[in-house]
């Protein structure tokens, strides 16, 4: 560098040494500022149309150093003078190309692989759940026998290749069927009507196939026949329930919402008749007429079927409410979202359903607001109906004597005097046994409802088994124990799957009955609710 003085001096001092038509000795790299005579072995390049030119190595260094910070702003190399893009050529390299291709392919395929992994994982999970349910429901031996595990274990080399061996396919198909149990239970809870509608044709088809195979129904039914007939049983039950208890439930729902029907509650036993309809409020009658005084056309029958479906929907959710009440051991105030669904079931059609739901939503909000407002000054108190069933004629004869004796006097005292800051809690002001807590946020209720619904659905086989065990220990032994002299069981209850099946039915019936009764009690409670008075903090009250 020190030796470069005489020849190079003119170039840096004169401002532009960069000319396009430069001859040897006047090139200057805009990065390292060296001229081509100083660096004879470094090739110059002209990456852009302007006068700037640089050593190839300097440009490459600059680009590779700056690439990362450019990449964050999706910039590409460009000439700082004329902003023209600087194009970097790379030799074709098969290894790098292969790596890039592999990366591209992996990126394209990996979502599907992930999806397949998740799906196979959930398939395995639901298969496991199905096997577990079958073991609980029917007992380990029966489940293993049904699956053909015995022949699977006893397989020898003489049985030929696996894919041409019938027990393997039986096992696979049955495992697949079992893996549908979990999702099926969930679908059944969320849209029970769909499940029933789909299952009825299947069960008819299945019955036809059984008959064609000369497998006639007899008592006790074989598992195949039980499975075939069960959808018909549930459908019949739902229809009967709707027929006999539908209008009662509707009226109770109206009453719970504070509609006119609340003023004339009826006993559950008198349900379903025209008298009950007359007793209902105007709106109740309107709805009931929509339901009951219909033409007997095919479309009305279909319409009715739809209502049954919706009602089943309602039943299941209402069942949750019943269970929650059972768990808490106390009558809850109102489950808002559940009521909406119930009322949706009451409405005469989709539009009515929507309209009614919105209406109910509004009303419930009003109710809630009202309650919150009330709680500013007074507490809303709800008396638990602790005594025996209250007669409809005397709803006020409630076991609330200890407070009622004192309460009427206090408002008069309070009204007569000025409020004073002296705190004087009277002994009869102790917290009442059943006070309405402020309603929880709706989302929480909904979320809790969904979670407990899912759990209840998935626990259904276990519940069936538990009820079956209850049946086994409560019913006479001659019903539930297999006869020693009989080769095949002589009664449905002598096998575990039969007990579980019947136990499940008993559970559903009990649940519905409890739900209906709880609703009835809720109406009773609601007709007897009143505002709790608290004594004013006054001088005279304390003396």
């Amino acid at each position, binding site marked *: *560098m020190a030796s470069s003085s005489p020849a190079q001096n003119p170039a*840096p001092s004169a401002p532009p040494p960069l000319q396009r038509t430069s001859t040897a000795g006047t090139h200057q790299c*805009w*990065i390292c*500022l060296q001229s081509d005579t100083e660096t004879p072995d470094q090739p110059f390049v002209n990456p852009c149309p302007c006068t700037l030119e640089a050593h*190839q190595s300097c440009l490459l*260094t*600059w680009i590779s150093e700056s690439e990362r910070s450019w990449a964050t702003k999706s910039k590409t190399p460009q000439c700082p003078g004329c902003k023209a893009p600087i194009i970097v050529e790379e030799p*074709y390299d098969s290894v790098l190309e292969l790596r890039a291709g592999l990366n591209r392919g992996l990126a394209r395929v990996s979502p599907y692989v992930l999806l397949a992994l998740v799906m196979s994982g959930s398939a395995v999970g639901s298969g496991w759940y199905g096997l577990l349910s079958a073991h609980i429901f029917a007992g380990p031996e029966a489940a293993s026998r049904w699956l053909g595990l015995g022949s699977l274990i006893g397989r020898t080399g003489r049985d030929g290749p696996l894919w041409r061996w019938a027990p393997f396919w039986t096992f696979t198909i049955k495992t697949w069927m079992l893996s549908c149990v979990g999702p099926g239970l969930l679908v059944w809870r969320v849209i029970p009507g769909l499940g029933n509608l789909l299952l009825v044709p299947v069960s008819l088809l299945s019955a036809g196939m059984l008959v064609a195979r000369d497998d006639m129904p007899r008592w006790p039914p074989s598992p195949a026949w039980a499975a075939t007939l069960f959808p018909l049983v549930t459908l019949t039950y739902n229809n009967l329930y709707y027929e006999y208890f539908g209008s009662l439930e509707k009226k109770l729902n109206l009453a719970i919402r504070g509609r006119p029907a609340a003023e004339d509650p009826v006993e559950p036993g008198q349900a379903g008749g025209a008298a009950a309809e007359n007793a209902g409020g105007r709106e109740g009658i309107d709805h009931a007429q929509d339901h009951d005084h219909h033409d007997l056309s095919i479309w009305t029958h279909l319409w009715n079927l739809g209502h049954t479906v919706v009602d089943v929907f309602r039943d299941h959710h209402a069942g949750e409410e019943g269970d929650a009440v059972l768990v808490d051991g106390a009558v809850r105030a109102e489950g808002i979202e559940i009521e909406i669904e119930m009322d949706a079931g009451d409405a005469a059609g989709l539009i009515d359903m929507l309209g009614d739901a919105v209406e109910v939503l509004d009303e419930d909000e009003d109710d809630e607001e009202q309650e919150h407002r009330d709680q500013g000054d007074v507490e809303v108190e709800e008396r638990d109906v602790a005594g025996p069933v209250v007669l409809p004629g005397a709803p006020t004869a409630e076991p609330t004597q200890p407070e009622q004796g004192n309460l009427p006097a206090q408002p008069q005292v309070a009204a007569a005097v000025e409020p004073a800051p002296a705190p004087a809690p009277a002994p009869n002001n102790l917290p009442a046994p059943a006070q309405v807590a402020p309603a929880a946020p709706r989302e929480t209720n909904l979320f809790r409802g969904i979670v407990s619904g899912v759990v209840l659905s998935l626990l259904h086989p276990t519940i069936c088994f538990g009820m079956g065990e209850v049946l086994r220990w409560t019913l006479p032994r001659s019903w539930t124990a297999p006869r020693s002299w009989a080769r095949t069981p002589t009664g449905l209850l002598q096998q575990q799957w039969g007990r579980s099946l019947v136990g499940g039915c008993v559970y559903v019936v009990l649940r519905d009955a409890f739900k209906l009764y709880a609703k009835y009690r809720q109406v009773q409670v609601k007709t007897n609710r009143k505002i709790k008075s608290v004594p004013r903090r006054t001088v005279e009250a304390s003396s």
Partner: protein
Amino acid sequence: MGGTFTSSNLDQTLRVSYQLLPTEGTSAWSSRFQAKRLGKELQKINNGLPPGIELVKADNLEDWLLDIRVLDNNPLYLNQTYRLKFKFSSTYPIEPPEVTFVKDTDHAIPMHPHIYSNGIICLDLLGQQGWSPVQNVESVCMSLQSMLTGNTKDERPPGDEEFVRANRLRPKDIDFYYHDNTV
């Protein structure tokens, strides 16, 4: 391109590849590179600088000091000389130099909405994004000179006090948001 390597070709390829490798060699190579480039710049500076810009000290390859003056009668900077300190990393000119105003008994920090009171300058030219090797010490000085000349606001950047108190970053690591191109 492939398949036709001559021995000199290969030698060239190997050398370039070696230079590009991010190893110990890179730093040694780039500091040689930086030394050559700074030597060239110094040579050019010694041959003359624009009016208002003076070299104070350039006796090593890390810190240089230059003084700048505003040439017109801008009342904010009238009869004032400001001292600039350039710090060069070994990767200069690939990376920008760190340029700050120096505050001592004879020199103040100029009042400007892009100059913090600790001397740190907010100028996109000096950031990673705005810098390119086509810039040099002289061009940076001229940019700062014109930045002062065009200014009429007697103020510091917003949040100056807090920045001066809290900042521990080197100027080139600060991610300035170049929001204002009017001053």
